[in-house]
């Protein structure tokens, strides 16, 4: 084809939609030029081939894959949203509860010492203390239960506490390697203090373990 100037117009007219005046000019030229008719025919054939190939139906399975993928992702996006809703509801509930607690009138708890009681000393320790009170000090190592002043409790004090067991005089027991035992743990007397606040549900027990002054 020697008509280079017509090539673009012929190519564009193959798809239609050209300006009618240009289209009419192309038709007139094609009627006169065999080379351009061949060019136009080849252009039409190639475009028709491509269009017919493009218009062939796509297998339905390919569409299904697309739709299923989209719906799966949309469902997946919805689930976290629901979880978020639950979390937001829980957080709101906690916030309301926190506000309720914070708005309650602040009450300074009044502490009343209801009772101070010293637990009963172990029976063995009492016997040993009584033996020691009889003045039989032979230089052997002895362990005495502590009194309020940190020394051995007097019989009068024991009576006031109501913990005096009625035991007969107990012979002195020499301390040997075999019977020495865990003297500190067995003979330490913790002090128990019961504290009552103005809240009937709150009772505080304070247990003071006084170590180091048993000897």
């Amino acid at each position, binding site marked *: 084809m020697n008509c280079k100037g017509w090539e673009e117009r012929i190519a564009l007219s*193959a798809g239609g939609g050209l300006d009618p005046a240009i289209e009419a000019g192309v038709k007139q030229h094609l009627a006169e030029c065999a080379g351009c008719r061949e060019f136009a025919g080849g252009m039409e054939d190639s475009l028709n081939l491509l269009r*017919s*190939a*493009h218009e062939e139906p*796509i297998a339905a399975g390919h569409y299904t894959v697309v739709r299923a993928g989209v719906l799966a992702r949309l469902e997946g996006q919805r689930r976290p949203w629901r979880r978020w809703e639950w979390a937001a509801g829980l957080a709101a509930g906690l916030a309301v509860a926190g506000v309720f607690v914070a708005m309650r009138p602040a009450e300074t708890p009044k502490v009343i010492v209801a009772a101070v009681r010293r637990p009963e000393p172990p029976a063995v320790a009492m016997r040993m203390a009584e033996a020691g009170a009889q003045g039989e000090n032979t230089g052997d190592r002895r362990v005495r239960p502590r009194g309020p002043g940190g020394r051995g409790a007097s019989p009068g004090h024991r009576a006031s506490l109501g913990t005096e067991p009625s035991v007969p005089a107990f012979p002195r027991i020499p301390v040997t390697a075999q019977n020495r035992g865990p003297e500190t743990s067995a003979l330490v007397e913790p002090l128990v203090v019961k504290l009552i606040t103005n809240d009937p549900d709150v009772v505080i027990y304070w247990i003071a373990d006084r170590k180091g002054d048993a000897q």
Partner: protein
Amino acid sequence: MTGLASPAMAATLDGAEALTTVLEAARSGDLAAFDTLMRWHERLVLATALRLLGKMEDAQDASQEVFLRLYRNLNKLEVSQNLAGWLYRVTVNVCRDARSRRPEEASVEEAAELVSPDADPQQAATRNERQRVLELSLRLLSGKERTALVLRDLEGLSTGEVAEILGTSQATVRAQIFQARIKIKGFVESYFRRRV
């Protein structure tokens, strides 16, 4: 985009009322309605993406992205807006992004994937041949030429509609179409000359 001369766009205009109903239901979170919306436009999106990307797998990925963007923008879309035009524009953008992310690969064999499985062997062979020619000839084109030719000659949009979708002038589209048609004509003729 005001003109709806193309068959694809006219088809959506026919069911404008139904589209409005389905669009409203999809906006309210009805996934079944959105599924219907996808079914109505799946050919438009997948076929265009396939011609622009050349591989069915890539086209399916791109189509999914297009429909997800549609879902995210349901509330922004006006009922009176041309949904087909919007979908073409998004499809072109998604495919352009996909092409820029991965280099083009030879995928002549995948042209056979397009053939419907119910075809008889002789028809299937003819279809495979056509698909092969289509795929190979599109691969000769630049990205812009390919997009313009797919929308103009394969999807049947007007030059004005293509220009609006691509955000360019009609003169530019005409120039791209011309170059693309010349290349394709040359390829098709040489292909069948070799075959003969």
